[in-house]
């Protein structure tokens, strides 16, 4: 069962990537009937066949890499929708932090420190999302992460109060929705 | 259309200038880590420049190169980082 789920999820990811790469590479234009313009947009039959067979091969080869654990939560499409929504607050945070860092670059006012935060997340995926979000917002940078516990060490360009809340608090509540 | 193409070219020109400035950090950087940071910055800038140039030349094909670069530069960075993690041997 686990193997089947892993195979299926790898297959779907592979097929998704392949099809999105070959989108809009349909039939050649001159052989296209004028009444069906979509045949140019979507995929040709051969493309589909190749995509599915390639995905099958890849899935059978590397399925043990994508799914190392028994955790198949991310197969739920709702969670991917939440990730898309999450990108909006992330982007806003990034913009704000970028302006802040731009100010610091010009004035040179920095007060760096490495602080420890303890977000309340368990899964690898959630922690990775959090760490990458933290790293993407300028001003904070994940230096290290504990292999076992949910502890991170953040390089903060301007030290402030209550690091766990100030750095991670905004992201954690979003990440918990799709990764936990 | 011509204006936008020129704008993309101008952006690419600016990015090329930044790359030169970053290459200066490759020269100066006191430690290997600083040089790696500079290399990483150059990587990101090159991806941006490639995308801009691809749009300016109006060839989709050129975006593929940016994707390849985005993935592979990451691997280079990881290799150097792993070496540096091992300490000075």
């Amino acid at each position, binding site marked *: 069962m686990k193997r089947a789920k892993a195979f299926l999820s790898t297959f779907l990811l592979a097929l998704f990537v392949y099809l999105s790469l070959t989108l809009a590479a349909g039939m050649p234009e001159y052989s296209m009937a004028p009444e069906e313009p979509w045949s140019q947009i979507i995929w040709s039959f051969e493309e589909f066949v190749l995509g599915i067979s390639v995905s099958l091969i890849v899935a059978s080869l590397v399925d043990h890499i994508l799914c190392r654990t028994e955790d198949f939560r991310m197969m739920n499409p709702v969670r991917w929708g939440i990730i898309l929504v999450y990108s909006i607050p992330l982007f806003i945070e990034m913009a704000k932090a970028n302006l802040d860092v731009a100010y610091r670059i010009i004035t040179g006012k920095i007060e760096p420190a490495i602080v420890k935060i303890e977000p309340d997340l368990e899964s690898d995926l959630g922690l990775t999302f959090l760490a990458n979000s933290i790293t993407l917002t300028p001003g904070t940078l994940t230096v290290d992460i504990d292999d076992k516990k949910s502890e991170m060490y953040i390089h903060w360009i301007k030290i402030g109060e209550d690091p766990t809340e100030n750095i991670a608090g905004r992201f954690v509540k979003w990440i918990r929705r799709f990764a936990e | 259309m011509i204006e936008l193409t*020129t704008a993309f*070219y*101008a952006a*690419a*020109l600016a990015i*090329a*200038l930044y*790359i*030169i400035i970053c*290459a*200066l950090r*490759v*020269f100066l*950087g006191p430690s*290997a880590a600083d*040089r*790696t940071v*500079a*290399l990483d910055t*150059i*990587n990101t800038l*090159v991806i941006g*420049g*490639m995308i801009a*140039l691809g749009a300016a*030349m109006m*060839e989709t*094909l*050129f975006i*593929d*190169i940016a994707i*390849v*670069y985005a993935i*592979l*530069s990451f*691997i*280079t960075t990881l*290799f*150097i980082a792993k*070496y*540096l993690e*091992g300490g*000075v*041997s």
Partner: protein
Amino acid sequence: MPGLVQIIQFLILIGLMMTAVAVIIFKDLISAAIALGASSLLLSLEFFVLRAPDVAIAEAAVGAALTTAIFIFAIKATERKEGYE
């Protein structure tokens, strides 16, 4: 009057020469490998500007990523500093 593309090319070529000089003068081999990677990268960009997408991909994949990796492996297996010291 040279066009914008030529000036971009000019800058890239200058950067290429700079990094090539850096490869030679660094005593620290890992820094030299980093400079070599940067040089490969700029070369790839130059190929891009010269409208050779195939070559640019190959140089990006092989020259910048794999060659650097192999160099780092070799440096790890031998020694890091140039010269006796």
